[in-house]
């Protein structure tokens, strides 16, 4: 039963509430404008304009099928052969969603870690080193050093430092996901995109991964899709709520979880649907 009080509260709620981070003094490293994504005729994303703050963790939450992955994969043009992406993706003042952009170079700046850990069928060392070697880093000493720092940053070094020549496919799920993070940061990106990186991991590995991401925030801007509300609350500075192809609410994480402005967001974060 709705009381009159509830009805008034509900009407006070907005339909959308998207904060402009540039207006609140954040340094913006990446932003989208007029972003639309089509899978064939099906428009999977049509209101996805967001600004991302430098060296902050932004969480993308929302029910499954709401377009989070679609949005994230558009940011580093991973949707290139799969979907049509229109609109602007401004990275440090340059629209990277235009044909003239060197997409390979761009993906090195905007790295990605996937839902299922996907280490290559190579040694742990080569998983990290081979992309660098392809880009002309051949000095063994330098490679060793990058492999070591990347593994340390991904909090995997201590566990694998004696097994660098062993196959990466023998690693546990949590370790494999860390290796994927190490691999991504070895090419020295600015931004790390993570699509539900912990969903295939056990609770212990998940919490270790969260700690790692908090450490990585010093050096990288992190955008993470998660279906785990506690995870978003624990690690992110800002949170965007997606629903049915639209960003309905974007604000500081504490605001989203304690005082959401949009009814659906409120329902979602309180676990009433999704």
């Amino acid at each position, binding site marked *: 039963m709705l009381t009159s009080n509830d009805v008034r509260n509900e009407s006070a709620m907005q339909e959308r509430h998207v904060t402009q981070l540039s207006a609140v003094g954040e340094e913006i490293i990446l932003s989208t404008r007029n972003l639309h994504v089509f899978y064939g005729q099906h428009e999977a994303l049509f209101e996805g304009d967001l600004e991302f703050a430098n060296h902050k963790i932004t969480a993308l939450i929302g029910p499954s099928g709401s377009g989070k992955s679609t949005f994230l994969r558009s940011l*580093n043009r*991973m949707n290139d052969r799969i979907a049509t992406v229109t609109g602007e993706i401004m990275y440090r003042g340059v629209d990277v969603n235009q044909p003239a952009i060197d997409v*390979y*170079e*761009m*993906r*090195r700046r905007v*790295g*990605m870690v*996937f839902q*299922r850990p*996907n*280490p*290559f*069928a*190579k040694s742990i060392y080569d998983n990290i080193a*081979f*992309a660098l070697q*392809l*880009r002309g880093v051949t000095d063994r000493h330098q490679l060793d050093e990058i492999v070591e720092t990347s593994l340390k940053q991904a909090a995997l070094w201590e566990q694998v430092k004696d*097994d660098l020549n*062993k*196959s990466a*496919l*023998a690693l546990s799920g949590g370790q494999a996901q860390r290796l*994927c993070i190490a*691999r*991504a940061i070895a*090419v020295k990106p600015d931004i790390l995109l993570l699509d539900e990186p912990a969903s295939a991991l056990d609770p212990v590995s998940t919490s270790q991964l969260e700690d790692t991401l908090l450490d990585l925030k010093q050096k990288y801007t992190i955008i993470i899709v998660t279906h785990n509300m506690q995870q978003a609350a624990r690690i992110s500075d800002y949170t965007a709520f997606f629903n049915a192809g639209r960003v309905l609410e974007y604000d500081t994480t504490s605001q989203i979880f304690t005082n959401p402005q949009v009814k659906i967001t409120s329902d979602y974060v309180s676990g009433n649907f999704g």
Partner: protein
Amino acid sequence: MNSKTQNKIAIGALYGIAGFVVLILLALLGYILVSGMPQLSWHFLTAPAKAFLKGGGVGVQLFNSFYLLFLAMLISFPIALGAAIYLYEYAKDNWLTTTIRTAIEILSSLPSVVVGLFGFLFFVVKLRLGFSILSGAFALTFFNLPLLTRSIEDSLRTISETQREGGLALGLSRWETVTKVILPAAVPSILTGVILSAGRVFGEAAALIYTAGQSAPALNFMDWNPFNISSPLNPMRPAETLAVHIWKINSEGIMPDAKAISSGSSAVLVLAILIFNFAARYLGKRLYKRLTSA
């Protein structure tokens, strides 16, 4: 009748059918090996064949079979690899790729005798290559290409899409992703496919009768200059293979020990193909282990 009994009957029937197939295979292998093994000797495996007298061997035919196999693989593997990579990694689904796939399907179901007659008309007659190793190798390429392409494509398919995404997300081009990530991971399975198809090519007769020819001139195994006519490496000489030899002895062999030679040759052929098959399994497994284990 309840579903439990039904299940039992179905399982029983399936076991029966499977057992029957295995039995046929064992009987065939047993017959060939039992009647052929006693003929095998170092002399038999190395001596040249004799047309009218007792005591000939299959040395030249054996060499021809391996040499043809080698050449056929040398030609067909790069083409099949390229075609498979194009079809699976690059091509979009459109009329062109549908046409190519259909062509491959049809080509792979073509009877090998048709491939052989085509090879005769085209390579032997039209291109004037004569009955030669080269004509045979080209015919075998036609025979082998569709199956090998399909098997390599299947190998590529077994590599998860997440591997490709992983490569692309690191800023690798599609080509770099295919050559540095996908192919290395697919090597065990590609190799298995290559060896299995080698077994098929090794035993092929119909495609070779009118291309590589039915005669095996004596070879001088001291002469490795491919331009000399008696050199084993000369690709322009006619070259009867082991499988063709078996066919020929059985249809028109006039040596007194034709039956024994035919049995011996069959045993060699079957053994070689068995070795190919076991090698494929063994190598594939080992390579896969090396890739995946600590």
